[in-house]
């Protein structure tokens, strides 16, 4: 059941637009079906990211909050 993470992108402390720019760039470098883990703290990303995934066809397979106000997304490349 554990998802195999192919790359981790640390966007903690960054604010708009850096998390989305870094995410889009990182996803470009992945192969289809590979999984990216993203960590961040910018509240805006929590609504920007799902919208971008919906439009780009990438899939959010896990979403959660860690301690200390950090959120975590697992995204599978289309």
């Amino acid at each position, binding site marked *: 059941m554990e998802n195999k993470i192919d790359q981790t992108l*640390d966007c*903690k*402390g*960054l*604010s*708009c*637009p*850096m998390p*989305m*720019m*870094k995410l*889009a*760039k990182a*996803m*470009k470098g992945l192969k289809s079906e590979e999984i990216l883990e993203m960590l961040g*703290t*910018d*509240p*805006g990303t*929590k*609504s*920007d990211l799902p*919208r*971008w995934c919906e*439009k*780009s066809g990438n899939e959010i397979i896990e979403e959660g*909050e*860690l*301690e*200390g*106000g*950090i959120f975590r997304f697992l995204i599978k490349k289309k």
Partner: protein
Amino acid sequence: MSEKNKEPGVLGNLYKTFFAKHWPVWVGAIVLGILNILLFAIKSPWGASGGINNWGENVYKLIGIFGLESATATSTSFYGMLCIFLVIGSFIGALLSKEFALRIPPKGELIKGFIGGGLMAIGATFGIGCSIGSFYSGVPALSGGAIIFTIGMFIGVILALRYLMWEMEKFPKFSSGKSYNFLSGTGKSGNWQIYLGWIVLIITFIIAYKYSGGNKIMAWFIIIGMFMGLISQRSRFCIVKAFRDPFMTGDADGSVGVMAGLVISVFGFTAIKYFGIGAGDLAVRAREMTWVFPHFFFRAAIGGFIFGLGMTVAGGCAVGTLWRVGEGQVKLWASALGFLLISPISKLYIVPPIVKVIPQNFNFKNYLPDYLGYTGAVGLVLFIILIWYMFVKWNEKTGRFSAF
């Protein structure tokens, strides 16, 4: 025992509607448009750079430099107070949704924040207004210069976005490194944020009430400013997002939101100007010329361009900076600091000598209805918004101009 599974009541559901999730940008932008109309009906439209400049003047007044002893105290400045309560409103919104945290970014981001804020200050001095005064309020005020400012801003945003992408490619370390996050409201232990949010909200109303005896307009500015901050925070309303995202991820939601707010404001502002609502002892002509600044043509173009560069580098327009300050994003604290410290300097020393050598046409009255009539002016603005809408929607679908 069954506490955990208890369904929220009517009020609980209402609370969740506002604070569980972000609002769509267009909802926030429309409400902001309505509040902007209300501000205009009471006194004059929304603006941000004037208020931030007032903060800066008061800082220098306190230090005793630049001869700003006669600067208006922030407690008596309508726009200084509007901006303060915009920050407080965003703080309340972030607390009530447990989204507040002190987010300290890597050093490179702080530097970019300060430089971006400084550029916004210079741009706003040139353009006699910022992303709000010369765009979000200026375009509905049917100012010809506001349209020029907007075009300048658009070019500035595209150029600065290219810089950010180049920087990310060539110097990725500039935006990475040690970052810190304090006072976040995760889980049950973060419920203090909700309590504090209510306390700050009540204090805001008390302050407004205190003002209401001697200065009714200020009481309204305090309440409206607070709601503007809260709504901007909940809907992530940001002008830079509206201009930048179609060229970045292709996302058009931010743009469409801002357009919705503009359309509402166009009708509200036009009604106020056309009928001279709230003119009082002023001539109707003065009411018509409200927020129509003498910045046609080069002042508006240069101002918009520099402002566009600044807000993209900072990652927040004038209002986007203010509400992110309230949310605890320290990069935007640096941006606000750059804005307020540079603004008085740019007004006193940087911009005046350049303005002297820039050709300006004072014969052009800059008020579009003078040339096109009210129908023509409103029609032109709506037509431009329609073209912009068609472009961002088409681009969202095709990704033709998006970087990713």
